[in-house]
């Protein structure tokens, strides 16, 4: 076997892994918000796609304004982290208090349909505000520069997304397992009524979780904005992907979301490099296979059926 062949293969493998991890980490940031909300509120929140879209649009819009007015360069990064918090608080309170509050206890799919309706309306709002023209917010990516690894060029911005996803995963784990707030959250997940009887303010936990999830969704959008052209329909696209990730990993499971997004990211990258025709097909095929053989997802803890 010629040496070149082995080297090519290793290089291809490395490229697939890196691309997959980059794509997977941005999927994780979005999907983990969805899974946290599902875990606590038992709501499969379609509106999550709009949070992502609003995060991306608002970041790109403000970013473009910022760089036009020649303010200090680091401002772009401030925008990326500030926008999600604003979107998270505003939309989190609006959707949870204004809509979901009235629907707790109703049929699961009625709630899904209601969030779908809110999603459609919000898509309309974002189209109304920002129109159909693309927005570009490439400066943060260009600022961080590029690096060459094994003959392939990567930009530091994308690589830092992996770090961001890891930080979020660890922070969430610490929050859930080690803080009093996290334990209260787990108690509510386990049994809502008993936790209420024990003096936990379930209403506040619900609102807090929803704002947290919304912020993460918007952060996914704001963080990806510098690497894409922000266009109408990005929310529609991301929400089905996030569903796939969450279903594969197990709905309501944070480690599941991590594994699911890495799996989807790497498999998609492999498809893009080796069989471009299968790019989309393969993700949903995995989703269907997981649903058929392990409907609760790869990592969801078994649930006790209450009668």
């Amino acid at each position, binding site marked *: 076997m010629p040496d070149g062949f082995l080297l090519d293969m290793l290089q291809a493998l490395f490229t697939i892994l890196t691309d997959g991890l980059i794509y997977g980490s941005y999927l994780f940031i979005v999907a983990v918000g969805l899974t946290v909300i599902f875990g606590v509120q038992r709501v499969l929140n379609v509106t999550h796609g709009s949070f992502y879209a609003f995060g991306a649009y608002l970041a790109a819009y403000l970013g473009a304004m910022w760089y036009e007015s020649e303010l200090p360069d680091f401002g772009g990064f401030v925008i990326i982290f500030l926008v999600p918090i604003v979107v998270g608080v505003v939309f989190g309170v609006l959707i949870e208090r204004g*809509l979901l509050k009235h629907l707790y206890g109703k049929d699961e799919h009625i709630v*899904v349909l*209601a969030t779908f309706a809110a999603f*459609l309306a919000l898509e309309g*709002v974002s189209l109304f505000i920002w129109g159909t023209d693309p927005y570009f917010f490439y400066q943060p990516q260009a600022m961080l520069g590029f690096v060459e690894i094994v003959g392939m060029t990567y930009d530091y911005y994308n690589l830092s997304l992996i770090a961001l996803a890891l930080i979020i995963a660890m922070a969430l784990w610490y929050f859930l397992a080690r803080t009093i707030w996290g334990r209260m959250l787990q108690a509510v997940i386990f049994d809502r009524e008993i936790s209420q009887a024990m003096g936990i303010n379930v209403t506040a936990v619900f609102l807090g979780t929803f704002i947290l999830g919304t912020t993460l969704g918007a952060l996914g959008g704001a963080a990806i904005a510098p690497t894409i052209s922000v266009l109408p329909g990005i929310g529609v696209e991301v929400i089905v992907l996030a569903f796939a990730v969450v279903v594969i990993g197990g709905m309501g499971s944070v480690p599941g979301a991590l594994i699911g997004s890495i799996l989807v990211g790497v498999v998609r990258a492999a498809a893009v490099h080796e069989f471009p025709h299968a790019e989309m097909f393969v993700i949903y095929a995995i989703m269907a296979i997981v649903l058929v053989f392990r409907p609760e997802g790869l990592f969801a803890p078994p649930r006790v059926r209450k009668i």
Partner: protein
Amino acid sequence: MVWSDRTVVGVTVGVILVAIINFFVPEWIRQIGLLSMAMGAAALGLLVLWRTGLISFGHALYYGFSAYGVALLNYLGLRDAFLLVIISATMSGLLAWGLGFLVRRYRAIFFALLTMAFSMILYGVLAKTERFGSTDGLNIRPPTFFGYAPQDEAAQICLFLLGLAIIYFLMLGVQFYLRSVLGQMSMAVRENEIRVEYLGYSVERVVHVKYVISGLLAGFGGAIMALAIGQVDPESMVYWTSSGEFVFVAILSGTANVAAPFVGAVVFEVIRHYAWEHGASLWQLIMGGTLLGIIMFMPEGIWSLVQRVGKKKDSAP
């Protein structure tokens, strides 16, 4: 007796009236009618499932499968509209029968997500296969009607009459199904599956039959749609947003009557026609707002208005 069923009488009278009106309307209204038939058939399929409390977020699978069936058969040289619709819809039904073995075990959110995953698989295949025109889709040559090859407006009138006849038989078929023992099981399964099993019926079979019927209905819808616009493409027929539109129409209409999905579909298409003139943002705002309003304030759908007028004489089958 068949004619003692008020719904059958109402549907028959309604279909005859629409068939007559069809000759006197401009083309764009007839086009809205055709699109409503397609949308209504798919929503009728969801009604059949919704009666058991199941919601499919992936009926675009059968809709798109059948639409592409029409396009491919047409490409292979089959020109007859009736055969195109029947063959494609039957293939959709067969696909639903096959997938039904998997799907029938799931309920609630898992059912919705599994059906969505299947439809997205088809979308992924169609959007990436150049043979099928990728994202541009395929064109369909004008069909013939039992050997008769009309032009322009006459062709549209023929298609409308054919579609109407098909829709008529679909409505009657679903009505008889819902009245049969198997159909009456719908509500029983929704209320308590374990009891149904103890009574000696197979819940999985009830769900499977429903799934095949609804796949078949969505297939008819897709075939009519393909012929009505003369073009198929994955974005507007197979993507999850089309499944969302069917769900929207089904919720808008309510499950009280087999004619309800078609009334809902007409409302949907008319609003879409006018809203689009003012831009996509308005359309989505209206759609989202209406759906929210229906879920919150009119959970029985717009058919409940009809029932209120009829003082609930017309009870659900």
